[in-house]
């Protein structure tokens, strides 16, 4: 045992790393690991797992409620239900710029944001303004009892239409 120890020591007889440096580095390393772990735990703590927020899926009633070629604003859900000659789609009413609620202007056939003046077509495509992206389309389908149902967590392509 002691013989092999002597072999590994540098020829000067002094260890290349002093005990103080070794302990300093071990302690700093441990503190660093603990700090990183603490930061991760703190991030987890501040990300809630259960949210008491409004449901993201909702029923929008019977399709017959919506006339052909109409845009209907559902205030509680902040969604436009658009019915064209081919069918239905649901467009978010939340402006993609900074989250204000847009308004449907039937006389101009546009969706307009009151905050910073962004304008969109009824299909969500951007006409002008600071908004960086078009208004997203939400997944829309029919329930078993024939009502429209919108899922605000699922976005779909702008050309997808629910035929009824």
């Amino acid at each position, binding site marked *: 045992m002691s013989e092999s120890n002597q072999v590994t020591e540098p020829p000067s007889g002094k260890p290349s790393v002093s005990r103080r440096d070794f302990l300093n580095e071990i302690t700093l390393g441990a503190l660093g690991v603990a700090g990183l772990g603490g930061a991760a735990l703190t991030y987890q703590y501040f990300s809630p797992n259960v*949210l008491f927020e409004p449901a993201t899926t909702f029923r929008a009633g019977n399709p017959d409620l919506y006339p052909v070629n109409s845009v209907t604003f559902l205030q509680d859900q902040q969604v436009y239900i658009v019915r064209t000659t081919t069918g239905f789609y649901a467009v978010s009413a939340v402006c993609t710029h900074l989250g*204000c609620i847009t308004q449907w202007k039937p006389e101009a056939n546009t969706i307009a944001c009151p905050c910073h003046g962004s304008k969109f077509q009824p299909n969500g495509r951007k006409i002008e303004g600071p908004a960086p992206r078009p208004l997203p389309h939400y997944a829309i389908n029919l329930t078993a009892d024939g009502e429209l149902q919108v899922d605000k967590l699922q976005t779909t392509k702008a050309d997808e239409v629910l035929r009824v």
Partner: protein
Amino acid sequence: MATSFHTTLENLRSTRVWRSIFRRGPAITNRTRSLAIFGNLFLHWLPVKVREKSLRVRAAYYLGSLSLLLFLILVVTGVLLMFYYHPAAPEAYHDMKDLRFVVSNGVFLRNMHRVGAHLMVLLVFWHMFHVFYRGGYKPPHEFNWVVGVILLLLTLFLSYTGYLLPWDQLAFWAVTVGTNIISAMPFIGNKIRFVVLGGHIVGENALLRFYVLHVVILPLLAFLFIGVHFWRVQKDGGLTLGSKEHDGKN
């Protein structure tokens, strides 16, 4: 009258209790005047001596001291407002209305807090511009300039977190728009917004988080940095005075 007051003071100073608190003698010599500052926790970060020039109004227009004064006013009025405020929906809005219309002198305190906050932002900016145009960011004041920038940010964050607390439409949309600016950050923006709000929308979690930031975390940080800022003014050799001292008009 004056002599009897003097005698009472002398008698008070010779009591054991007084001498246990102020161990130096009366501040009548330069040495004991210095000790009065050095030996006092609340004064020791102030300079023992100042140049007469630094005391002129035009030296800095007392902008830093006035900012501190406003901060202290905001702490006092803020703590008083806390006695009638629940950081929960929908109580927060009703509490704010109660403070305005029901609680005695509540409207005075609330407006003092509100106007004081507006004034503090104004004064802090004015202070910063004044220091900037005096060259107060140059050596040896660079460190204190950075501390000042941190204090400016803390002032703005305090304003912004306080903005949500009335829980009215203005508060809701201001914070909706403001936190959407966070989510414009690439990759991590949405995650940071989620943690700041405690959810996807500006709801009760967000109100409580902003409240805790507003009444505990940010004021403590502000106290800390204000202490460093004032202490450092002295350590860096006092106020930055103009290269040629203007007397009177300029």
